[in-house]
C-alpha cells in the first residue's frame, strides 16, 4: 500500500485510487472520504466510475493503485470479515430465476451472518413486496425491492447503495427516503450513489461529485452551493459599462435595459454595487440549485 490513509476515523477512506480496464483508465486517482454516521451522496454522470468504485470497495474488483480503508480494513484482503458489517444493493439486481424473492432475501441475509426477522417483515410490508414470486417473474422495481429488503433487513454498520431507487415508483421512493432517515438516526453510515438530485438533497449530509474517474467536488451541500453561481437578473435605468469585466461575473446578457448574469458567491458584492450605480428598478436573484451545480460539472465531460 502507498501512503497511509489520512483519516483513520473515516468509515471509508480512499486516496489516489486507480483502476484500469485493459487500456482504459476508469479511475484516475480517486479520493473519497465518508465519516461514520453520515449519509454520503455519490454523484456523477454515467460511466464516471461510481459502480467501479463501489465494486472495489466490495473487493469484487481489485484496485491498481492507491490506498483504501473500509471500516478499518482492506477491502480486498479482508473482504469476508468486512462484508459481515456492510450490506450492498447493486444498481442492476439479478435474481435466480427459480428462487422466490423471500428465499433470496433469507439466503443473502444468512450469507451475511443473519438478518433481523422483525425488520425483514416490516420492510416487506413497507415496500409492498410479494416474497412468494419467482425471481424471473419480478419486474425491475420489484427486483430492486428484493435487494433493498435483503440489504436493509440486516443489522450492519455500513450500507453501500448503487442507485437503489431506480425502477421504484414515487411512493416506494418516499418509503426508501423515510427508511434512510431512520438509518441515519441509528447512527449507521450510508454511501448512496444516485442520479436523483431531490433524493440527495433530502438525504445526504455530504456529497462527492465524480467525473472521469476522479472526485471533483466534495463537501456539504451548503459548501457546494458556495462554489456555485447565483443567477441575477435586473432591470436598470442605465446599463453600466464594464459589467462583464467584474470579477466573478459570467454569461452576461444585455437586452435593452435588462441584464442577466450568473455570479460566483465572491463576486456578488461587486456586482450589486455596480448595479446599484445603474439605478435598479427590479431585481430577481435565483439561488444555485443542486441541479445547476451538477450540470456544470457533468457538462465538463464534453470536450
Amino acid at each position, binding site marked *: 500500500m502507498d501512503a497511509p490513509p489520512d483519516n483513520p476515523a473515516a468509515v471509508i477512506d480512499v486516496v489516489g485510487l486507480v483502476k484500469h480496464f485493459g487500456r482504459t483508465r476508469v479511475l484516475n486517482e480517486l479520493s473519497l472520504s465518508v465519516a461514520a454516521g453520515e449519509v454520503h451522496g455519490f454523484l456523477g454522470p454515467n460511466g464516471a466510475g461510481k459502480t467501479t468504485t463501489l465494486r472495489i470497495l466490495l473487493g469484487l474488483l481489485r484496485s491498481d493503485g492507491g490506498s483504501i480503508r473500509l471500516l478499518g480494513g482492506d477491502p480486498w484482503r479482508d473482504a*469476508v470479515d468486512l*462484508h459481515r458489517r456492510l450490506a450492498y444493493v447493486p444498481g442492476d439486481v439479478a435474481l435466480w430465476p427459480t*428462487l422466490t424473492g*423471500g428465499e*433470496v432475501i433469507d*439466503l443473502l441475509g444468512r450469507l451475511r451472518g443473519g438478518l433481523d426477522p422483525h425488520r425483514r417483515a416490516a420492510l416487506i410490508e413497507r415496500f409492498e413486496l410479494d*416474497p412468494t414470486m419467482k425471481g424471473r417473474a419480478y419486474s425491475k422495481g420489484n427486483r430492486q425491492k428484493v435487494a433493498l429488503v435483503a440489504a436493509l433487513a440486516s443489522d450492519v454498520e455500513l450500507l453501500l447503495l448503487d442507485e437503489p431507487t431506480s425502477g421504484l415508483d414515487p411512493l416506494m421512493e418516499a418509503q426508501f427516503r423515510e427508511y434512510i432517515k431512520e438509518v441515519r438516526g441509528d447512527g449507521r453510515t450510508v454511501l448512496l450513489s444516485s442520479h436523483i438530485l431531490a433524493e440527495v438533497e433530502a438525504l445526504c449530509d455530504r456529497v462527492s461529485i465524480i467525473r472521469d474517474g476522479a472526485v471533483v467536488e466534495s463537501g456539504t451541500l451548503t459548501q457546494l452551493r458556495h462554489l456555485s453561481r447565483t443567477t441575477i437578473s435586473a432591470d436598470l435605468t442605465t446599463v453600466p459599462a464594464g459589467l462583464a469585466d467584474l470579477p466573478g461575473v459570467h454569461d452576461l446578457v444585455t437586452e435593452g435595459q435588462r441584464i442577466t448574469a450568473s455570479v460566483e458567491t465572491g463576486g456578488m458584492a461587486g456586482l450589486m454595487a455596480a448595479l446599484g450605480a445603474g439605478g435598479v428598478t427590479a431585481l430577481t436573484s435565483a439561488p444555485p440549485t443542486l441541479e445547476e451545480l451538477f450540470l456544470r460539472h457533468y457538462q465538463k465531460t464534453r470536450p
Partner: protein
Amino acid sequence: MSGELAGTAGLVRLALRRDRVLIPAWVALFVAMSGFSASATVGLYPDQASRIEAANTINSTASVVALYGPIYDPSSLGALSITKMTAMYAAFMSILMVMLVVRHSRAEEETGRLELVGAGVVGRAAPLVAALLVVGGASCVLGLLSGVALMAAGLPVAGSLIFGAGWAATGLCFAAVAAVAAQLAGGGRAANGIGFTVIALAYLARAIGDLAEAGPGWLSWLSPIGWNQQVRAYAGDRWSVLLLPLAATAVLVPVAFALRGRRDLGSGLMPDRPGPGAGRLGSPLGLAWRLQRPLLIAWTSGSVVLAFMMGSIAHNVAGLLDSPAVAKFVRQLGGAQGLTDAFLAAELGLMGTIIAAYGISAITRLRTEESAGRAEAVLAAATPRLRWVASHALIALAGVAWLLLVAGLATGLGHGLAVGDPGQVLRITVAALARIPAAWLMVALVFAVWGLWPRATAFGWGAYAVFIVIGEFGQLWGLPRWAMDTSPFARSPVLPGPEADLSGLVWLTAIAAGLLACGSAAFRRRDLAG
C-alpha cells in the same frame, strides 16, 4: 400478416452477426468429419471383400448396431463410410440446431434483449421466423457441404447428395422441435432440455428398432433419426423418405406459431406458481445444489437408462468370437481381450465421455452466475471466494463421480441379468469408476480456463469436441499416437480387461488437481468479469 413478420430480415442479420464464428465453425467441423471419414474408409478398405466383411461384422454386432445403426448395403463403400454419421452424428448435429433455435428465440426473451428489439418495428412472429430461417439455412448449408465433401472423397454423387439432404432435413426437423419446445418451456434452459430429451428419445427409439430382428422395427420409423437412416444413402437412395422429416417440420412449425400466439413474451404456457415466501437456503453449497439439482436428476435418469440398455446387449458379441474380423474391429474400438469385456470397456468409455459433458455444463454454471451478476450478490455478502467456487466445483466433480457410479451399476445390472451372473455388477461398477479421473480432468480444464480467462469459458466445449473427434476418428484417420494421447479419455485404463494400466489414473487425477488449484488461484486474484 405482413405486420407479424416485420423486421425479420434485420433479426436474421443480427443472428448471423452474433454467430458469425459459431455457425461456420460447427458447419466446418461436421463437413470435415464427413470428408475425412469417407477418404479414410476408402483407404482402409480398398477392395470389395474387405468392405463386405467389415460391414457384415458391424451388422452382426448388436452393440454397434445400437450405437450407429446397421449398414443397409454391405457391398457399398459409401454406406460403410457413413456408418457413424447417419445416426450418432445426426444426433450431435440436431443438438446443435436445437441450441441455436433456443439461443435466438427463447433465451433472448429471458435476457430481456428481445424486449428491446420487440419494441422496434418488429412483428410478433419475426424473432421465431428469423431463428428458424437462420437454423434452417445452417442445416441446408451443412448438409450440402457435407455431401460435397463426400463426393470429393470419391463417393457416388447421388448417394452423397441424398446423405446431405438427409442431414439437412433432420436438422430442419429438430429446429422445428426446438421451436415448439421454446414455447412450452418456462425458459431457455428448460427449452433446451425438452429439445435434448426428444433427440435422446429419437436416438433410443431407433436403437431399439434397429436391434429388433422381428420385433418392434417400427420404432425406427417413429424417430427422425431413424428416418435419416432409412433414407439409405449409397444403399438404395430412397428420396421419398425425406418427405417424413419435411412433413414433420411442416406440422411442427405452425404448431409453434400457434403456441407463440397464446403466451406472453417471457413466460411459458404454464404460469409461474408462487413459491415459499421464506427460504431455508443459507450457504453457497446449498444455493449451488438448489441450482444444479434439476440438471443432475435429469442426467441421472438418462445415464441409468442408457447404461442399462448398453449393459444388457453387451453379451451378444460373445456369439461372434470365432470371426477374426470382429476381433479386429473390437480392438479398434479400444478393447484389449475378451470380446464382451472389450465391448463393455468401450461402452463405459463412451459413458465416461458423455458424462464429462454433464461435468462441463455443471462447472460452467460458475460463468453463468458470474456474467449474470448473481455471483456479485453472493460475494458481496460474507462469502469467501473459494467457498463459492468450491460449492459449484464440488457438485460438478461429485456429480460426475455419482453419474459414473450409477452408470456402472446400471451397466453391470443389465449385463449381469443378461448372463445370469450377479458378480458382474461389482466388476463393471469398478470399471466404470476408473473413468472418473478423465472426466474430472475435463471439468478441471474448463474450470482453469474460467479462472484464468472467464470470457473464454465456452472454449472448454470446443476442447471437449476436439477430444471426442480425436477419440472417434483418430484411429480411422491414422493420427499419430501422441496426438491421440492428448485426449484425457484416451488415458483411462481399459476396464474391464486383464491388462489394464492403472498408472493413468494417478496422472489424470494429479493433473486435474493441478488445474483446479490453478483455476482457484487465478480466480482469487482476478476481478469479477461481466
